[in-house]
Structures are given as C-alpha cells and as structure tokens.
C-alpha cells in the first residue's frame, strides 16, 4: 500500500513547459481523479508517475521512496491505457500473465493469478482468444485484468472508458468503483469527463494549462468552487456566470447585472464585496426555478420575473434559458408544465446557493 506525493513537479518538452510546479498529496488507498480540458497535462502527470516520462524537476514519492529515477517496473504501479494496448499477438491468458512472466514468476503461480483475475472480471471464457476477437468492453476488461494480476500498490488509469459506449461506460464505472472497494489500492484516474470524476472520485484534482486549479472531494468542488473555471467545469449543466458589478442600494450592497436586473447578494458575502467591484454572479440551474416548480428552499429566496428565451424539455424536468442582462442563465423547472418561449414568468433564486467571483482574478469571494 502506498501514498503518493508530487512535490514541485515540472515537465518541459524542449522549450515548452507543460506542467508548472504541481504539488499534490495522495493518501494510501485513495481514489483520486484528475480532470480537466484536453491538453492540460493530465496524461503527462500520470505518465511521469508511471515512469514513462522523465521528470524535468521536482520529485515524485510513492510510499516512502523517491521514484523519479526508477524504471516503471520498480515503482509498484500498473497502468491501464486509453487504447488498452493489449499485445495483439498474444492470447488473453498471455496478455494477463506477461508482466508476471517478465518478472520471473513461476509458471504455476502465473496460471493461478491469471485465473483469479479472469474470474474476478468474468474473462474465463475468453482466455484463449486474441485481442482482435474481443469486443471493446471485453478488451477493456482484459486491460484491467492485466493491471490487477500484478497486484501493484498503485493503479494508474488514463481515460480507460473513453472508447466505450455510454451504457458500457456506466457499467464499467461502477465495476471499477467496486474493484477499488475490494482491493483498496491507491488509484489515480485520468478523465476529461466531469461526470466520471464526480461519481468515482474520493478526491478530484481539477487541472488547467499545466496548473492545479483546485483539489477536493466531489461535493466540496460542487459546493465551494475556488474559481470561475472550477465552477463552470464541475456540475452539469454548467454554472451560469452573470456579468456585472457591485452597487450601493440603500444600506446593503447589491449586484447590478450589466444591462439587467438588480440582485441581492448572498448573506454570507455581503461583508466581502466592495462597491464598484466588477464580479461574476454564479447561478446553478437547480437553484433558479420558476415559482411553484422549485425544490424546497431553506434560506433566503429572491423573486423576479423573467422572459423565457428557450425551452428544453428533458422529461423529468425542463431547462429554461432566460436572459439576465447580457448573460444567459439556465433555470431548472421541476415537475414541469408547458412553458412557452417569450412568456414572462416569476422565477425564484436561492441566494445561499449563489456565488460571486471577482472578474479580474476569477477567484471566488467565498475564499
């Protein structure tokens, strides 16, 4: 079992720096998901932990060892690749056992471990097939099996589900989760799908452009995003950002949407804003609903009337876009009834579930 620590980790390809001083501590047995847009350096970080990519500066510790100088096989890791990387010329059995064979494990032990892993993943019937005789989902399972067989301390997954169709992906998601519950090894899992991250992770690491934007549990990231990027990346549909500034209205400060209405500021933030400050007002669709079609609200609620721009019925609920000044905000209508475009209705906004971000720094004012 092993914890992982990345200290000041930097990666440069020639002149270009693709990772800027990454610091991260992963606890033993933790399931950590790296998430972020394409090209942000998730795979590069993972491959550096695996030992497939050299370290430009900084250190990587697995357990109590500094591993940057070690070959992949000496790091106690195994990895599952996006394209599975099964050896085409070997049967499933050979694919599963290859790592053990290379490390000089006795044949009887290999057979036993391979059979065990095959049973765990339901691959018994397929052991004598070649990879090209398998379906995508089966290949994925073999790739997982190959990682499991070697019983490593750390599993590294690089977008292992992105080649599967939606249904299979959901299924494999829970299977991986279950596997983790069983073996309790440390897992780093890379994806650019925030739903995958939310559903599987103990902790999520949100990356952008070679930096870590925020680290936290799924609910921490959802409830208190540190900045505009995390707020719009986590949660679906994404949080709407209303452009505007803080104005004085009588005693209390208010938010003036650009070319739009005046909104009250969430109570917890009233002391933290300055008059004249340019901010984004962050609204999630769940906390903004037509009156009579919202969730029960515990805290302060602001009512206003808005004109419907666009309607998207989803069955169990309906998404309504309305314009607040220059910005578009999505509203979720629970127990939906018929809504017409251009109709003007009363909406209610749960203030405690709203966020303010400084427009210059894009940082949350909650911090």
């Amino acid at each position, binding site marked *: 079992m092993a914890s992982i620590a990345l200290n000041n980790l930097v990666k440069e390809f020639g002149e270009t720096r693709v990772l800027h001083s990454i610091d991260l501590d992963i606890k033993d047995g933790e399931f950590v998901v790296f998430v972020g847009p394409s090209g942000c350096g998730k795979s590069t970080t993972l*491959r550096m932990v*695996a*030992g*497939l990519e050299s370290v430009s500066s900084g250190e990587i510790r697995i357990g109590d060892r500094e591993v940057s100088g070690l*070959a*992949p*096989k000496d790091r106690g*890791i*195994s*990895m599952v*690749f*996006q*394209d*599975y*990387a*099964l*050896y*085409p*010329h070997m049967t499933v059995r050979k694919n599963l056992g*290859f*790592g053990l064979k*290379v*490390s000089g494990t006795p044949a009887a032990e290999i057979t036993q471990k391979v059979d065990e892993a095959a049973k765990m993943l339901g691959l018994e019937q397929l052991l004598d097939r070649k*990879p*090209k005789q398998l*379906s*995508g989902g089966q*290949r994925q399972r073999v790739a997982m099996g*190959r990682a499991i067989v*070697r019983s490593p301390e750390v599993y590294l997954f690089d977008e292992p589900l992105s*080649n599967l169709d939606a249904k299979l992906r959901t299924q494999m998601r829970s299977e991986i989760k279950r596997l983790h519950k069983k073996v309790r090894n440390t897992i780093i899992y890379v994806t650019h799908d925030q739903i995958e991250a939310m559903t599987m992770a103990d902790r999520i690491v949100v990356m952008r452009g070679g930096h870590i934007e925020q680290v936290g549990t799924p609910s921490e990231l959802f409830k208190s995003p540190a900045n505009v990027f995390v707020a719009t990346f986590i949660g679906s549909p994404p949080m709407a950002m209303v452009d505007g500034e803080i104005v004085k209205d009588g005693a209390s400060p208010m938010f003036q949407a650009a070319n739009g209405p005046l909104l009250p500021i969430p109570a917890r933030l009233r002391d933290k804003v300055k008059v004249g400050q340019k901010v984004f007002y962050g609204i999630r669709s769940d906390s903004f609903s037509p009156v009579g079609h919202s969730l029960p609200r515990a805290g302060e609620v602001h009512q206003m009337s808005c004109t419907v721009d666009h309607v998207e019925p989803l069955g169990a609920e309906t998404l309504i876009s309305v314009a607040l000044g220059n910005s578009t905000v999505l509203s979720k209508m629970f127990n939906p009834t018929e809504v017409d475009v251009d109709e003007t209705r009363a909406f209610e906004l749960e203030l405690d579930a709203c966020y303010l971000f400084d427009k210059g720094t894009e940082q949350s004012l909650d911090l």
Partner: protein
Amino acid sequence: MNDIYKPPLWPMLLIGVVSLIWVLPLIGIIMTSIRPEGETLKGWWNIEEFTLTLEAWREVWVNYPLWDALWNSIKIAGLSSLGSILLAPMGAYAFAFLNFPGKKVTFLLLVNAFVIPNQILIIPLFTLWRNVGLIDNIFSVIIPFVALSMAWAVFLVRNYLVDFPRSLIDAAHIDGCGHVRTFWSVVLPNALTPMAAVGILQFMWTWNSLMLPMLFLRENIPLPVLLTKIKGTYEPNWDQVAVATIITSVIPLLIFLYFQKYFAAGASNQSGQKG
C-alpha cells in the same frame, strides 16, 4: 435495359498482350532446354525440326557442380536475408523509439549509404578479405550483402514502426520489459510485414547478384556465377544454360509465392484497438 452488363473487350486484350510479352522469354528458355542445341541455333521459335530431349537436363548436372552451386546460393541468400531480417528491425527500433545524441545525423548517413554504388567498395573490401583470409569464404559476400542492405532495410522497417502503437511499448515497459525484451517480445512479433518485405527483397537481390561472388569466391560459387561458366568461351551451350537458368529462377519464385501472404496481412494485425 435487360442486357446484362458486358465488360469491354480491350482491357482483356491488353492484359493478354502484356502477359505474352512477359511469358515469351520463359517459353523460350524452356523450349531451348528441352531440344538439342543444334535445332535452336536459328531461334527457339524455329520448329522445322522438333526433337524432345532431356539431354541438357542430364548433362548439366554431370558436367557442372550444380548441386554445390545451388547449396551455396541457398546459404548465401538465406544467411544474408536472415541477417537483414534480424538486424534491420533493431536499427529501426533504435531510430524510431530511442533518443540518443546524433540520432538524426546517423539516420541520414545510414540512409544515404543507399546511393553509394557497390563498385566503390570492391577494391578496399578485396584487400580486407585477402588480409583476413576470407577470400573464397561465403561470408566475404554475406557480410557486405547484409551491410549494404541496412540502408534501405532500416529505412523501410523504421517507416513502419513510426506508426507502431506507442502505447504497446509503454505497456511493455510497465510490464517490466527493458528495451531488448520490448523489442523481442512485443515489437518483433508485430512487425512481420516489414520483416517479410525486407527478407524477400534481400533474398531476390542476393540470389541474383553476380559481381561480389564472382570477385570474392573461387570454389564456393553460387548459381549465377556458375551460369557464366557454363556458357563457355568456345561452346555457347545454350541448352545447358537454359536448364541452369530455370533452376536458378525457380527458388526465388517459390519463396516469393510463399511469403507474399505476409504482404497482404499488412496492418490488420497491428493493435488491440477496436477499428
């Protein structure tokens, strides 16, 4: 409307004519080999007289060391091909997947050796072989054959490996392979196509080559060199030359027929990815 589509006639004719042009010399050689030399002196197509005889087939085995030459040819072409098949992928692996200083320059130098004519090498090589006592040893031709093939063979295999799935190599490293094991257990088994190509090209080239064996070998001569001896100074021996020619060409033909399936196999056996 209810006419069945009829393909036009002219492609058939064209193909027929072209095939005939290809096949004619072959027919000529066979005809020459099965008739007494006297009958074919005016041209093998001249059939005023036609006597079927296997005299030349018998005589050439008796008069010349055809078996030895055949065996020499097989050894020379076989070992040269084996050398290229094994060495070219190693070079190609290094150029495709390893990083070492001077990689680009070395590769350019290697590939440019392709344009150096063999003739330049003859004299220095001859001196070298004489000094180390390798004259009349088949390795005096096998070594330069393998060395000369590296230029195009490494290039050919490298171009194939550049598209080799990188993740397979990563997976091998994760599974604990060093470069040698990765090359041997993962890359080679999946690079049969370019290896077969290298093998066939190298076999054809070395089987038919005349110059180096003629210069470096005395007794251990391969078939093409023997051919030049059958055609004596005073007797043309056309019938026996024809027989030896047939024997010389039949082996590469068989080899080609056997290995061509590897060309067709192509990239379909490449990766585990769905595709």
